[in-house]
């Protein structure tokens, strides 16, 4: 059993000072965390190491005694992930404890090579495991951030807008995958029911690429809308996308397609028996052209 833990408990202040000094010498992010905060975090961590219940050893990191330390590290690395620290900076934060422990070991058992080696290897193992744990938590924290952002993007990216009484439009932006199509389909169908719209325009100007999968998703949405009694017009098809669609052999013949949203809107108005006319100016000299749509 290692005597190092006892030594740390005895020389707590010394280790704390040494660790802090090394940490400051190593890569620092003054912009993200200030000195006071850093000192506080280090002190808290060291307390978690020294204040373990009796019988807890460095050799066994799975012991219940180390649970508070692990939780503290996890919370710390998640908060650092949110602040924008890199993984190596976060790992280095823990790894910089190693030299401090080595110094302590050398001071205490410098005379006895065998014992010194044993203590150093124990300390090495312990700190490495802590660093791994920190990195794991860091990645976990980052994953959570990514998942949250994905969710937010999903919600933001599917607005259904009412263009006119009985005409809704769905401007799609970004790549369509299965999960997003589901949300798109649901929100469109819901909007059709709510607004009692007979015509829905799906605008794909913002969709970067259309492959067979995306086309299939679009067709599914259009079919579902048709089943409910609404007609879909696909608009915003760029020349490249038109080429891709034909090259891939995607059959869009049953779908009304328009190159611009304005064309689709014009057609939707026409279908619902409406007409847009330009109002003649009262003081105008010439005959204002009456444009029927």
């Amino acid at each position, binding site marked *: 059993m290692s005597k190092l833990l006892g030594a740390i408990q005895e020389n707590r202040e010394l280790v704390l000072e040494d660790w802090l000094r090394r940490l400051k010498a190593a890569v620092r992010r003054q912009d993200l965390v200030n000195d006071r905060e850093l000192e506080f975090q280090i002190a808290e961590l060291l307390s978690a190491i020294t204040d373990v219940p009796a019988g807890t050893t460095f050799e066994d990191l799975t012991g219940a005694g180390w649970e508070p330390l692990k939780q503290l590290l996890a919370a710390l690395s998640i908060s650092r992930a949110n602040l924008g620290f890199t993984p190596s900076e976060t790992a280095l934060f823990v790894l910089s404890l190693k030299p401090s422990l080595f110094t302590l070991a050398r001071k205490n058992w410098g005379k006895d090579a065998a014992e010194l080696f044993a203590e150093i290897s124990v300390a090495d193992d312990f700190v490495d495991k802590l660093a791994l744990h920190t990195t794991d938590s860091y990645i976990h924290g980052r994953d959570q951030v990514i998942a949250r952002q994905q969710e937010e993007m999903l919600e933001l990216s599917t607005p259904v807008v009412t263009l006119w009484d009985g005409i809704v439009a769905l401007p799609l932006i970004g790549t369509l995958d299965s999960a997003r199509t589901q949300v798109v389909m*649901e929100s469109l*169908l*819901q909007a059709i*029911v709510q607004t009692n719209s007979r015509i829905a325009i799906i605008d794909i100007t913002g969709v970067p690429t259309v492959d067979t999968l995306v086309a299939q998703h679009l067709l*599914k949405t259009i*079919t*579902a809308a048709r*089943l*409910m*009694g609404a007609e879909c017009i696909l608009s915003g098809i760029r020349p490249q996308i038109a080429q891709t669609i034909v090259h891939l052999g995607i059959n869009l013949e049953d779908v009304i397609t328009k190159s611009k949203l304005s064309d689709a809107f014009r057609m939707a108005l026409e279908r619902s028996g409406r007409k847009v006319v330009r109002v003649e100016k009262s003081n105008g000299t010439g005959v204002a052209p009456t444009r029927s749509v």
Partner: protein
Amino acid sequence: MERIPILRMGSYLLVTIQVDMHDRLALTLQDDLTNRICELNAKGVLIDISSLEIVDSFIGRTLANIASMAKVLDAETVVVGMQPAVAITLVELGMSLPGIRTALNVESGMEYLRETVANHGASDDGDGTED
């Protein structure tokens, strides 16, 4: 035995499905409806499924069959008020029901029937109606 009522409105038949459809009920409806179309010489059938919340491939196929049978008997079929969830389910099942006319609600469904049946009538009567 449970039956889905078929109501007559002029030359149209109105079917409102307000219970969960099961296979036998769907088949009974198919029988009854074809009989009624013949009996009353109906020109249009409106099936309201706005209360239908669960649908499977069999029900979907039966709806498509009813529409085709009505077509053979010279009656237009329009299915109205499909719920979003039902529409998604049918699409996921790969049933796009290409032969069926759909409408958002009973009102627009009736409107569609009147239009198409009126057009049919006009073309049947030929040039006599003009003068």
